[in-house]
């Protein structure tokens, strides 16, 4: 049996990581600004809400990123695991949805602790489908965790900002290149890597039979996109990712329904919602780029208000990801000094 004993107190670390991740996103990114760590939720008071999307797929909302669950006769596939403190509640809801089927796969959309914090607990609760002369040992070690290789690299790295994750939380199976796939519960599930978007390890998860896309934080509808420049995120990668989502989605009729979209954070969406968001992000990128071509400084660009017509819906003046930080991330990743 694999040694899953944490070298450090990972659950506590995950909470810290939740604070740190967002702080890191902004802290590394915008060093000149005073950083404000997001307040941690009181996990005892958080309840998990389950939403049936369509086909085999559900969305679970609690604290942290949305969790996608695909359940069927083969078992359960989970996309992202929120915070470690949410694991028991999430697992209880997954057991209810699936009728107690074991978790076979955990897929990670990216490295942030509000999406991978429960990895270790989920893995232990699951059981992989394995054959061979060491099958029992491997199966007993839990579910498979699949992610882009950059997720594993970053979770393993001690870089002075994020502690390394314990082995039990790490992806057990990584990929490089454009995509990888699994076939489970009667449908193909594709993991599509989107380079340099929210981070450098993002994947979109496309459930081809259920017709659902789980986007991770490439698409959220709660605010401006978070661009973790310290981990390879860029504005153009975000826009490319949003357009990739639109390549995958097909509305049922009158630009509504059809392929459903589970965002990294926020409400259930469809293509039209992603179009609205893609348009907004693209227009702001174009404006900042135009201002840069005119030789405007970052301060001048911020003062010109390239986002002001969208701030009422997506902006923030306080918290871990402010409008200023977003504009700065756009500016920096377009080559601004």
């Amino acid at each position, binding site marked *: 049996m694999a040694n899953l004993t944490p070298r450090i107190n990972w659950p506590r670390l995950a909470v810290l990581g939740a604070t740190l991740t967002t702080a890191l996103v902004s802290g590394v990114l915008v060093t000149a600004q005073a950083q404000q760590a997001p307040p941690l939720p009181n996990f005892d008071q958080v309840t998990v*809400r389950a*939403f049936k999307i369509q086909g085999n797929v559900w*969305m679970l*909302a609690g604290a942290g990123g949305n969790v996608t669950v695909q359940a069927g006769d083969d078992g359960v596939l989970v996309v992202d695991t929120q915070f470690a403190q949410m694991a028991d509640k999430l697992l209880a809801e997954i057991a209810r949805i699936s009728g107690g089927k074991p978790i076979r796969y955990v897929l990670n959309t990216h490295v942030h602790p509000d999406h991978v914090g429960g990895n270790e607990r989920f893995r232990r609760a699951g059981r992989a489908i394995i054959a061979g002369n060491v099958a029992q040992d491997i199966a007993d070690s839990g579910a498979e965790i699949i992610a882009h290789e950059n997720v594993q690299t970053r979770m393993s790295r001690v870089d002075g900002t994020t502690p390394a994750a314990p082995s039990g939380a790490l992806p057990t199976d990584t990929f490089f290149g454009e995509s990888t796939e699994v076939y489970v519960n009667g449908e193909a599930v594709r993991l599509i890597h989107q380079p340099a978007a929210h981070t450098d390890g993002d994947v979109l998860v496309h459930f081809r039979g259920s017709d659902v896309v789980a986007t991770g934080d490439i698409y959220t*509808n709660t605010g401006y996109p978070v661009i973790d420049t310290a981990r390879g995120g860029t504005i153009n990668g975000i*826009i*490319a990712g949003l*357009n990739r989502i*639109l390549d995958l989605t097909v*509305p049922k*009729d*009158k*630009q*509504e329904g059809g392929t*459903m979209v589970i965002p990294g954070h*926020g*409400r*259930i*969406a*469809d*293509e*039209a*919602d992603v*179009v*609205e968001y*893609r*348009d907004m992000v*693209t*227009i702001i990128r*174009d*404006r900042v780029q*135009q201002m840069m071509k005119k030789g405007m400084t970052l301060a001048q660009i911020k003062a*010109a208000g*390239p986002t*002001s*017509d*969208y*701030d*009422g*819906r997506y902006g923030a003046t306080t918290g871990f990801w402010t409008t200023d930080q977003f504009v700065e991330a756009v500016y920096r990743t377009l080559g601004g000094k």
Partner: protein
Amino acid sequence: MQPSRLRLAGLLLAAGVFLLAPGAASTAVAQVTLVGYWNPIFDEDFIERIPGPNVGDYAGLPITAAARKRANTWDASLLTLPEHQCKPHPSTYGFRGVGVLRIWDERDPQTQQLIRIKTHIQWQAQERDIWMDGRPHPSELEPHTWQGFSTGHFEGDVLVVRTTHLKAGWVRRNGVPLSDAATMTERFFRHDDLLTQVTIIEDPAYLSEPLVKTNGFSTALNGTMEPYPCRPAVEVPREAGEVPHHGIDDALPTKEFADRHKIPEEAAAGGASTALPEFMGKLPSLPMLEPIGDPNEGFGPPPAPPAGRGRGAGPGAAGTGPAAGGARGRGRQ
């Protein structure tokens, strides 16, 4: 006791028993019905609704500066993108558009309790449910739709409807936006063959005060409804991911509109004050723009846009799509 009094007492008793019967209240009490086919009446805001609004005309709308900026940078060419072509009007606008309106209701087959009122407007097949069975509005995490989630109840003969879960839309077909945080309250009044709908729209992102509009309909005794299929197509070759829009600096549509129609820019720019009758008295004292176009040009046909600029009402704003109640197309109506 006289026999006639006995009969009267019996009738009253029977009526009392009937009204006390479970489930009888909502089916027995006479209530106006909205069921039928209705033709829109375009007398109100005709120019805005049929020829289509001018680009840059936001007069009478209680919009925020953010809404004005978005509208000023909006490019009608956006509607040529395949992913924009088949969008229907959201319910916050659809009753202002063209096309026959059909209203019908669905009742429980056993109890005849009213479950929902359904509406269908021909253009882009806008179909809507107004739930009348007391169900709550869904979680904030549930999907938003073009028509939103609506619940209703009768206050006397007036149908009152509350709508949430709307997709981001528009309040005027020249780029004035409405966010997906908007909500709407409606009141439907029927007077014989006329139906009046009052909409009260609130949007924390783009409206500084509620936007109140009314729409009229008349009964269509020979009502018909055609289907409205829509399949997008590439109309303009573009680089992948290109989103048409105007820059902040070259956003002059309000000035152009004000100049063309010889009205103060402050009036053209809209805002809550421009929606009030008192604003008419203020008009003579407002400064006029220095002419930026042909000074002899008045309310005649608009000039061709400058070459290469591409601004114009476009298929959406100008309503160059199908005619009311007739053919199909992708133009905003």
